[in-house]
């Protein structure tokens, strides 16, 4: 006598959430507990807030020179002192935060706008297109970003934007590759195959399946690239190829501070430390995001 269990008339109750759901539901909670994400997030938030404030107000006009108060030490009226032209360092630092965010946003924006479509095309349009695009990407990748920035600056004159365009273009290969590899994974999955079987067109597959599923990876990449862009802008401005006088890019401020290094070393220290902090902040945030999103990404193989 065997146990014959008839198919239930009522649909079976749903299984309780498995470990994966624990992972999902916990994702936000984990983000809040992840030290990288917390610290990075705090730093980034601080930079953003400062930049927002600087949009409407700084204690002094960052560009206003006042020779009577040149190289003033830290005081209540000038918390970070003044530089050799009498400009309030705090105001310049705040203004610089705007440039930091702008440069990051422009670079990453260009890199994403250029890299993601290239990566998607390479992943979805067949081997010939893939080879062509990826070799072109390799070429750009091999070309030193610095050289590109110099060329651009020479041609169009140094400015924040030209520097950022150069950096952005230089980072297109990164996004192209990351997009391509994760898009390939999605496209190779069974649900995309099933979608093709019910007649989803390629563009529809991209928008309905590929992009939503690679979003997380791109966000992590963008965050990490943001930190690199900040560093790059600072470097270029230091070399005189980026933000020109008298705009207070932090990198530029470091360069200017070189002239008066013996008399007031702190002038170089403050912008330098803030550059480091901002880079660290975005880096940590990116790491934290990756830690949190990775297990889920792994399970969506």
């Amino acid at each position, binding site marked *: 006598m065997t146990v014959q269990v008839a*198919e*239930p008339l009522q*649909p*079976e*109750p*749903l*299984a309780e*959430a*498995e470990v*994966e*759901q624990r992972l*999902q539901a916990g994702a936000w909670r984990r983000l809040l507990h992840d030290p990288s994400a917390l610290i990075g997030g705090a730093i980034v938030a601080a930079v953003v807030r400062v930049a927002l404030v600087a949009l409407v107000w700084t204690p002094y006009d960052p560009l206003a020179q006042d020779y009577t108060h040149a190289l003033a030490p830290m005081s209540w009226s000038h918390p970070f002192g003044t530089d050799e032209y009498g400009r309030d360092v705090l105001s310049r630092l705040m203004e610089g935060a705007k440039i930091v965010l702008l440069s990051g946003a422009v670079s990453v924006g260009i890199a994403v706008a250029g890299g993601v479509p290239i990566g998607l095309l390479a992943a979805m349009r067949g*081997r010939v297109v893939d080879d062509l695009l990826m070799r072109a990407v390799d070429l750009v990748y091999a070309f030193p970003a610095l050289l590109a920035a110099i060329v651009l600056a020479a041609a169009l004159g140094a400015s924040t934007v030209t520097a950022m365009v150069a950096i952005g273009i230089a980072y297109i290969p990164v996004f192209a590759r990351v997009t391509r590899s994760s898009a390939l994974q999605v496209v190779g*999955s*069974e*649900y995309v*195959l*099933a*979608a*093709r*079987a*019910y*007649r*989803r*067109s390629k563009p*529809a597959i991209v928008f*309905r*399946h590929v992009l*939503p*599923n690679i979003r997380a990876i791109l966000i992590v990449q963008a965050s990490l690239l943001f930190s690199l862009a900040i560093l790059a802008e600072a470097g270029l401005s230091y070399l005189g190829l980026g933000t020109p006088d008298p705009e207070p890019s932090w990198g530029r401020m470091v360069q200017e501070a070189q002239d008066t290094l013996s008399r007031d070393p702190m002038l170089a220290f403050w912008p330098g430390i803030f550059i480091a902090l901002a880079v660290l902040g975005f880096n940590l945030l990116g790491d934290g995001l990756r830690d949190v999103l990775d297990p889920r990404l792994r*399970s*969506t*193989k």
Partner: protein
Amino acid sequence: MTAAVHAVDVPVLEARNVSKVYRGRGSSRTRSEVHALTNVSLEVQRGESLGIVGESGSGKSTLARLLLALEEPTSGEIRFTGDVVSGRPERELAELRRSVQVVFQDPMSSLDPRMRTRIAISEPLRALRIPGDHEARVHELLDAVGLPRDAADKVPHEFSGGQRQRIAIARALAPGPEVLLADEAVSALDVSVRAQVLNLLNRLIDEFGLTLVFISHDLSVIRWMCSRVVVLYRGEIVESGPTEQIYEHPQHPYTQALLAAVPRIGKPIGRSAT
């Protein structure tokens, strides 16, 4: 239900002398070639349950993709209700796409992890531009596959493997297909869940008059589900015929070896039989 009327004896799906060769990268001298399928011909009659048995390297997954017109054969033809579909541009394949649907193997990747069930199940309706009340259809399908209505709002990771396969089946049935192709659809499931899903499939086949093409390496499952069997080995059909005949009197050495290798409950392994 699709209302197309076809001559009774035209096979609903057919492969004629189909070969598929995959070429690796490199010049013609250094490139590696994989002969996934060689000169395969088979017919799927309307209303039957055809089993395709093959192990790894047999070419069964390739055959599935060719029958679904997701890939082109290197040579030979694929026909749907008598009309050639291989080599045709995508825009001419509307009828095929609506009538032949597939359920794949891996419950982990058969559903888009970010899509809610109601969207996932109704995707074919949108893609194929089928009018009507999609919401109602989703409910209808959830009932048909034995899932509760509130499953519609959940995401794949909230379900077990067996439930995900049910959702995949619901999705496949959404456009009212005539043919259901199951590519190792239960292989990744536990035995007890497998039984449930197989029972479900049988019920749906009876209820909707479906034609089933069941691809698997699992001989017991094929025997249970299919009335006719085709045995694939290294890209070629080595034997085909009614299920019982193949299982009781296999002719080809490979089929015989395959059947002999299947472990059976109570059959001792590696010791003298007690």
